[in-house]
């Protein structure tokens, strides 16, 4: 078999996410491309957590409605996922906690007591049993444990080996000869991409689904040379970021919709003061608290229009880890070059999903810093922070600069940054900010703003954004239709989207929302949408689930 899926489930606190990641690494080790979906409720201990790890010869970014292996650390894993299992599913369970199941019973408690190992190592035992049932060599497992489970390695290996010995090869999977790839979560890809773009400082208040950007950067602060701060609230986050950027540090913040509500006044200040900032904005099911640990694509309109007044902004919605890395890097460069706020608009599916990271996606054309127009930079020898230029971009200096007074201002201001209420100056400075929109468009539209896949000759196209890339690409491939993903959403790459849709008769938009926000945006640009397929239960589309919906409309 060239692709298969594993579901591992247990209580929160059982280490299900780490167990899933370990399995993903084992499959990576034997040459597969992997994708992992992690499903968990918002609680610390108890409840039911599960991961679906899917492995394939091809790059993937979605899960399927069936699993080949079910690894149960609790009874719920058996009871709640019957729709994903069938007679061919190999079931392996912890017989000390699961009372009713058919399959391979692993007496995890007994093994742990025999090895004098703590309860958290139970999942290593199950992983060992899985590897054996899947016919994966012990070497691959041992290597992964050594690389990724440094804590209590020998005990972990002992309990894994016991599980390995009990289970037998039920469903042998093919070993591939492909090279391993880094296995990254969306949050990790964003964090590393920001650093690649030259990030100096990251400031955030924890909020699912982007908390792990904060955790990853805090953990790697010394290694990556990044300053990481967690202030009192999102208002402080945004304003500290602007202070930091004013003083010359490339700074990003991270949050979700609720936190961004608090950041909007600072976001607008960024627009007016022309102090750049990058916002990592991870959507989750809303409105309000909504469903904190589940997904949605319902904040596109919010991000397009957030903040009082008019000012240009850059919004990019990467669809997998490759795009997340490349565009997070680009977002930092674009924000600083164009002196605008930039948003990396993602969601729980991408942030907390895990993907094989393909290096070929990393490269975008180089974004070179701006060469400001050399006219009117100063007046009588005085530095003008908001010097009026043809591009709208004024030279940005950071204190201290001898003989330069660097004034930024959220109030309407003149070229020197001094407050004004003069009609002519207000109009002129508004035009200067709006000119930057053109500059930003020129900059951004030279990049690959739209991703296309599937059958380029088809007259039917699935159009999606963000994390639906993976599932749409796969369904389009299976059905022989076209797939179009606008990656940049502001400024909207209308021409590129039209090019990508040229010859298309039926445009089907797929989105995790109840109203269809991308269709609204497309309509603004005169791009007709014939069908919308919407999902708003907090869960991403499965391949089969989306395929069925597409067949219903075609």
């Amino acid at each position: 078999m060239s692709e298969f899926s594993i579901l591992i489930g247990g209580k929160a606190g059982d280490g299900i996410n780490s167990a899933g990641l370990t399995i993903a690494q084992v499959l990576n080790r034997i040459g597969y491309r992997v994708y992992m979906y992690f499903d968990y409720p918002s609680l610390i201990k108890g409840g039911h957590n599960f991961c679906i790890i899917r492995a394939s010869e091809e790059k993937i970014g979605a899960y399927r409605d069936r699993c080949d292996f079910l690894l149960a650390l609790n009874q719920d894993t058996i009871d709640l996922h019957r729709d994903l299992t069938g007679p061919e599913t190999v079931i392996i369970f912890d017989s000390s906690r699961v009372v009713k199941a058919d399959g391979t019973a692993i007496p995890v408690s007994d093994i742990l007591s025999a090895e004098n190992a703590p309860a958290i190592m139970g999942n290593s035992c199950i992983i060992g049993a899985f590897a054996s049932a899947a016919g994966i060599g012990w070497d691959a497992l041992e290597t992964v444990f050594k690389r990724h489970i440094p804590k209590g390695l020998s005990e972990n290996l002992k309990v894994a080996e016991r599980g390995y010995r009990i289970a037998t090869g039920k469903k042998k999977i093919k070993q591939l000869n492909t090279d391993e790839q880094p296995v990254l979560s969306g949050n990790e890809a964003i964090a590393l991409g920001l650093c690649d773009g030259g990030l100096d400082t990251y400031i955030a208040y924890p909020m699912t689904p982007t908390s792990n950007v904060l955790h990853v950067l805090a953990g790697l602060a010394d290694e990556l040379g990044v300053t990481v701060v967690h202030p009192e609230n999102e208002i402080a986050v945004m304003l500290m970021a602007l202070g930091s950027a004013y003083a010359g540090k490339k700074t990003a913040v991270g949050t979700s919709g609720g936190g961004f509500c608090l950041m909007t006044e600072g976001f607008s200040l960024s627009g007016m003061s022309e102090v750049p900032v990058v916002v990592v904005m991870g959507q989750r099911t809303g409105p309000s608290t909504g469903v904190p640990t589940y997904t949605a694509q319902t904040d596109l309109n919010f991000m397009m229009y957030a903040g009082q007044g008019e000012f240009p902004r850059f919004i990019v919605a990467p669809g997998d880890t490759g795009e997340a890395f490349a565009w997070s890097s680009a977002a930092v460069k674009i924000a600083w070059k164009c002196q605008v706020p930039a948003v990396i608009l993602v969601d729980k599916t991408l942030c907390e999903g895990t993907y094989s990271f393909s290096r070929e996606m990393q490269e975008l054309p180089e974004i070179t810093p701006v060469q400001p127009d050399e006219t009117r930079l100063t007046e009588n020898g005085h530095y003008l922070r908001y010097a009026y230029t043809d591009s709208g971009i004024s030279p940005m200096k950071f204190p201290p600069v001898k003989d330069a007074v660097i004034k930024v201002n959220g109030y309407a201001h003149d070229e020197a940054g001094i407050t004004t209420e003069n009609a002519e100056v207000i109009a002129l400075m508004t035009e200067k900010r709006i000119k930057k929109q053109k500059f930003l468009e020129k900059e951004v539209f030279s990049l690959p703003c739209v991703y296309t896949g599937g059958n380029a000759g088809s007259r039917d196209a699935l159009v999606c954004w963000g994390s639906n890339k993976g599932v749409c690409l796969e369904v389009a491939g299976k059905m022989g239709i076209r797939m179009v993903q606008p990656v940049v959403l502001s400024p909207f790459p209308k021409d590129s989207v039209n090019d990508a849709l040229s010859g298309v008769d039926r445009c089907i938009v797929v989105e995790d929302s109840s109203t269809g926000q991308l269709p609204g945006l497309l309509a603004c640009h005169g791009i007709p949408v014939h069908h919308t397929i919407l999902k708003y239960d907090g869960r991403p589309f499965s391949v089969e689930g989306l395929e069925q919906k597409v067949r219903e409309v075609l």
Partner: protein
Amino acid sequence: MPDRTLITDAQNTWCPGCGNFSIQFSLKKVLESLAEDGVPPEHVVLVSGIGCHAKIADYLSVNSFYAIHGRAIPVATGIKLANPDLTVICCSGDGDAYAEGLSHLLFAAKRNVDITVIVHNNRVYGLTTGQYTPTSPMGFRGRSTPAGTVEEPFNPLELLLASGAGFVARGYTRKMEMLQGLIREGIGHHGFACIDVLQICASYCNLTGYYDRYVYELSGHNPSVFEEACTKAREWDYNRNAPIGTGIFYRNEKKTFEDQFKRDIQRPEERKAAIRRVLESKI
């Protein structure tokens, strides 16, 4: 080289008799004295909020970030964190510091970031034409409380002390020489400093007579003893008539926020190598 005066050409729009003139004059004197002591003006950044006080960012010819209401302190914190060599002065109104942005004030005190906050405390919203603030006395009749407020004011000094502020002082705009001294001491203090400046609002809250009667200069007070500072801070509660001490209530240096961050400058190739190492660890 341009002529380096400390006052810009911007037209000053404060009301005649406004206490802000004294604060601006004091700050200008302090900036001059800093320059004499080797801190050139380009190393100073002034951050302001919104309201009458904030216009000081337009009037003083130094680097400035004219921020938004209540948010001057996090901006100042971000600047100091980004470049600890800068002298960061944060002018804030009482509406900014004690209402809209109270949390930022308390957290700046808690984290001991080395900024100097000057609160232009005129105990009224001036620019929005006369509403009560957190330090207006009980019963204050403003446009939003025509029958008088029914809340007691905050004592900001107590709040600051409870939050861990290492430098807490009170000044009065009609005691300019002392005010200059307090600002200078606050800037010299290595750590968070806050000076609550009792300021006359000539249009909406002119307490000149009241302050002239009750204000006195602290003497024989030991600012290094926290309990003594608390006792002195409680002498006047911003509400009932009582002697109003001015001077340094508390001073205690400790580790600052920004000093605790590593600041290794990575070259781009070092950064790329670090990213490669992290990616390799994910295989």
